[in-house]
């Protein structure tokens, strides 16, 4: 390294120490207020999801030990329920996905419909963000339908890495089980490491193995059904606490997609194959 280079090295470090740097005054309080304000929009996120968040070890604090213990007890109870449901169910296997037939979840479904203009806002899909914002936040390429007449989504939600793309009602869209939704696509990273995804269905729902551009999946039709995932620790996580209608579920490159809409099987597959 030449003298000039060394000088530049030193000079830059000195300069760094002398730079004007804005202070982070009250930032933590403002972040807390923002997060608390976000919470009601995530109202449908059930308690055991919060348990999972806490169990990740990043938010643990000594003052929370009692609540944590209670939460863990509740988590164990949920796990036992899940195990019981799994034991009673008949399973289909997909890489990273298992669809299970069984009784509907015992956790009561509470329809929460806060007044909001954004399609899907009351469904507990997560925090409303822009498409550009979620691109920075998820670790997979977001796929959008390229079908004729389908523009960019009207609303985008993110909840713990699970992305929901929502379209409002439109003559060009199929419509969904939720009144204000024309189409809903869920995308999430589902790998073997991150656990198996479970889908609990009421018995009698029609499920058919299909492929989307060669990727394995299932077409689920008939009675409205509940959706549930299984967290890596075996805890069952209700995805939405809402019933959904016809849906197409498939995985490609470690990402799981779910398309919800009142479509025929072939139309759903055709739409799914436009996702890029």
């Amino acid at each position, binding site marked *: 390294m030449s003298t000039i280079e060394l000088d530049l090295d030193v000079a830059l470090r*000195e300069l760094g120490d002398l730079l*004007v740097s804005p202070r*982070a005054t009250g930032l933590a309080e403002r972040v807390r207020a923002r997060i608390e304000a976000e919470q009601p929009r995530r109202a449908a996120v059930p308690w055991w999801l919060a348990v999972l968040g806490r169990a990740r070890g990043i938010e643990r604090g000594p003052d929370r030990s009692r609540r944590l213990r209670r939460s863990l007890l509740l988590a164990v109870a949920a796990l036992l329920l899940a195990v019981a449901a799994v034991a009673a169910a008949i399973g289909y296997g997909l890489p990273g996905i298992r669809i299970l037939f069984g009784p509907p979840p015992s956790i009561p479904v509470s329809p929460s419909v806060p007044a909001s203009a954004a399609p899907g806002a009351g469904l507990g899909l997560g925090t409303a963000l822009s498409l550009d914002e979620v691109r920075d936040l998820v670790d997979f390429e977001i796929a959008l339908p390229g079908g004729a007449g389908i523009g960019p989504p009207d609303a985008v939600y993110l909840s713990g890495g699970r992305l929901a793309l929502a379209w409002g009602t439109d003559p060009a869209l199929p419509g969904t089980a939720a009144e204000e939704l024309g189409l809903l696509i869920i995308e999430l990273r589902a790998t073997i490491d991150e656990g198996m995804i479970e889908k609990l269905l009421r018995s009698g729902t029609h499920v058919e193995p299909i492929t989307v551009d060669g990727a394995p999946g299932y077409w689920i039709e008939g009675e409205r059904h509940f959706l549930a995932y299984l967290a890596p620790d075996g805890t069952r996580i209700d995805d939405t606490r809402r019933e959904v209608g016809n849906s197409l579920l498939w995985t490609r490159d470690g990402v799981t997609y779910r398309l919800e809409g009142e479509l025929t099987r072939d139309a759903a597959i055709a739409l799914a194959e436009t996702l890029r």
Partner: protein
Amino acid sequence: MAYEELVRRYQEVAVRTAHVIAPAADADDAAQEAFVKAWIALARFRPGAPFRPWLLQIVANEARNRRRSAGRREGLAIRATVDRPSDDAAPSPETAALVAERRTALLGAVNRLRDEDREVIAARYFLELSEAETADVLRIPRGTVKSRLSRALGRLRAGLTGVEA
């Protein structure tokens, strides 16, 4: 809320990161937004992975978005207090003036760099991030950090020559 502890631990470096990436934008606002987004995406954070580069990557993105929308270019600045000689190394007024002049020239040259060059220099020298952290925060491969830094320093030197001569 225990997340608040994380915010407190990393808030200074977050605001500083936002500032060096986008001096014209509101660094505090960018950092705030980044912390909220990091919280939303917390489930994606791999336990055991270093939190700081993951967070700063989100901060850097927020800052870049603001840089684009801010439009105008405002450079980094030196604190007003630096022109006061420190107690133990009080140089002569002439030396102090010379040092200040050189520093101003260097700062000007840094500010004239294109964003990509300034970012890598800021990450390594102003934020004192390691090469690996720089790669994470700027979302570039580690090898690219080396080559980009070397090119950025070359251009910085070239930008200084007129002044240094």
